[in-house]
């Protein structure tokens, strides 16, 4: 290990003589791979002069699970479960992104109701993702209270997911063509309760941190990145918007009828931790507004498209109807005919543009599936963002960038 670290440092050719040090000592510090402050398995080898960071080298891949290779051996409907495990803070968005990709490839048009249901689920997932990120930023500045306040509301979101699909974290929620089942009465009640309760708690959380002098002092100017650099590093999502670029896939390339909804794309100006925090706070408010709009305009109709080749029939029919049995068998065995094609689709994930580059050769499984994982791209900028900062800022920057180990390492 120490050999590797030295090699890494040599690679980055740190010129030790150019730094003015307090006592002439430069130390190497391992932040991670398992460190309570990093919220996931991230290894950073920091070169520090006292508290000041001179250089950092990241090592990634600790939880690499070969998703792209796995996908080449799995029938299309089984890939849904892989996408769960990318950004597991907002897995429904990944599931729906994959379903949209397959629907586009197979030329399936889903009913308007499905789009609206998906929007509600995706925005709930986005709220959840941002809540985790922002409350953890609070924790890393020493404000644990906000985190505990929001825990209950995150639980409410997980319960909503549970009502739709039975799972909480790795939801495997969406099906090619629509949903497995319609929103239940219990879901609607819980969602109404959430829409009443959450804004109050959220306001309390916002009041605790947003204009808190200590929080502002800690976060303003910490881990900044300019819009130009952020674009060069292919940032996307809240991190790019915090730097001042209003790129949002929901607006630029609308999917799932996002064009039907009015919402603001908030942008920051400094690209620092405070801006990232504020952009996420505003996006949570916008997501709430989108959910309310979707509920108000929710069309009647079926909750899935009529595509028996892709959408599993009700289990009772499988026992009683010949056709349902045939389709069930074909889907489960991966015998559905999929068009030959090459497709790239993207959705606005919790932390940026989540893309699916799929090549189908007409076979049972994808010929090639590549995920655009936003974390993987923007985590590259991490050393640049924390150079010259203190170690505590490095921790703060990492959590405010919302780097999710599952997505980073695929």
């Amino acid at each position, binding site marked *: 290990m120490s050999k590797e670290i030295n090699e890494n440092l040599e690679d980055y050719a740190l010129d030790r003589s150019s730094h003015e040090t307090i006592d002439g000592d430069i130390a190497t510090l391992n932040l991670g791979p398992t460190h309570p402050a990093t919220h996931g398995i991230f290894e950073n080898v920091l070169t520090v002069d006292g508290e000041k960071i001179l250089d950092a080298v990241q090592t990634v891949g600790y939880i690499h699970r070969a998703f792209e290779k796995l996908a080449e051996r799995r029938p299309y409907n089984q890939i849904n479960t892989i996408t769960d495990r990318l950004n597991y803070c907002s897995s429904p968005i990944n599931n729906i992104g994959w379903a949209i990709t397959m629907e586009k490839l197979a030329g399936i048009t889903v009913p308007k109701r499905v789009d609206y249901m998906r929007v509600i689920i995706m925005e709930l997932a986005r709220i959840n993702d941002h809540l985790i990120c922002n409350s953890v930023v609070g924790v890393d500045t020493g404000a644990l209270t906000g985190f505990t306040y929001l825990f209950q509301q995150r639980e409410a979101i997980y319960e909503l997911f549970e009502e739709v699909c039975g799972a909480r974290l790795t939801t495997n929620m969406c099906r090619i063509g629509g949903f497995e089942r319609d929103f239940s009465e219990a879901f609607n009640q819980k969602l109404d309760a959430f829409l009443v309760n959450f804004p109050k708690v959220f306001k309390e959380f916002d009041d605790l941190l947003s204009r808190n002098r200590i929080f502002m002092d800690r976060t303003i100017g910490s881990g900044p990145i300019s819009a130009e650099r952020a674009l060069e590093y292919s940032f996307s999502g809240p991190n790019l918007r915090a730097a001042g670029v209003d790129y949002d896939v929901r607006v630029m390339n609308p999917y799932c009828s996002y064009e039907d909804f009015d919402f603001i794309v908030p942008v920051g100006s400094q690209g620092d931790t405070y801006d990232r925090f504020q952009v996420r706070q505003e996006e949570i408010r916008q997501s709430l507004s989108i959910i309310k709009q979707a509920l108000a305009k929710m069309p009647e109709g079926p909750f899935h498209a009529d595509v028996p080749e892709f959408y599993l029939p009700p289990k009772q029919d499988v026992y009683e109807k010949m056709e349902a049995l045939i389709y069930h068998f074909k889907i489960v065995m991966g015998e559905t005919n999929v068009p030959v094609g090459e497709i790239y689709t*993207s959705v606005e994930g919790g932390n940026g543009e989540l893309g699916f*580059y799929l090549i189908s050769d007409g076979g049972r499984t994808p010929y090639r599936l590549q995920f655009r994982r936003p974390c993987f791209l923007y985590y590259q900028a991490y050393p640049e963002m924390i150079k010259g900062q203190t170690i505590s800022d490095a921790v703060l920057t990492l959590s405010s960038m919302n780097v999710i180990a599952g997505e980073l390492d695929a």
Partner: protein
Amino acid sequence: MASNLTNEVVYAKLKENFGDKIGELTVPFDLLTIEVTSNDAHSIIDWLKKDDTLQISYLTLMGAVHYPEDKGRELAIVYHLHSLVNNFRIRLKAFISIDYPTIASITDIHVAANWLERETYDFFGVIFTGHPNLKRILNEDSMDYFPMRKEYQLEDATREDKDDRFFGRE
């Protein structure tokens, strides 16, 4: 943000500047896809970024695809680029031989390509010349093969119960 660029306009501009280095115009699923020669991929991507009207300066994704049947051009390096100003996406493909899997690195144009190229090297063994730090990224350093190549079966290759022949396919 309405886009005033069309596939034809962009293609014509590329053709005008690079001539026969540009392959045919194809638009699978609404995304302009152009094959370019591997020697010129770097300069074309550079030009796309610097051109004042196109401004295709955002690297969305890059990676490789392995086609073992296609002799002499087994590896496709695929670039997805995006012009945020014009909201225009383009996909470039460069084919290289697996015996000499070398292509110029675009890290000098797009900083974000650094890890993507490392990942492509890690999984497909593509050597990016000019890359500042080309080594494995997700797999461990001692690995001596490139796992995303098609010859590496995920499951036991002798297993026959999932053979396509049993399902009426060749």
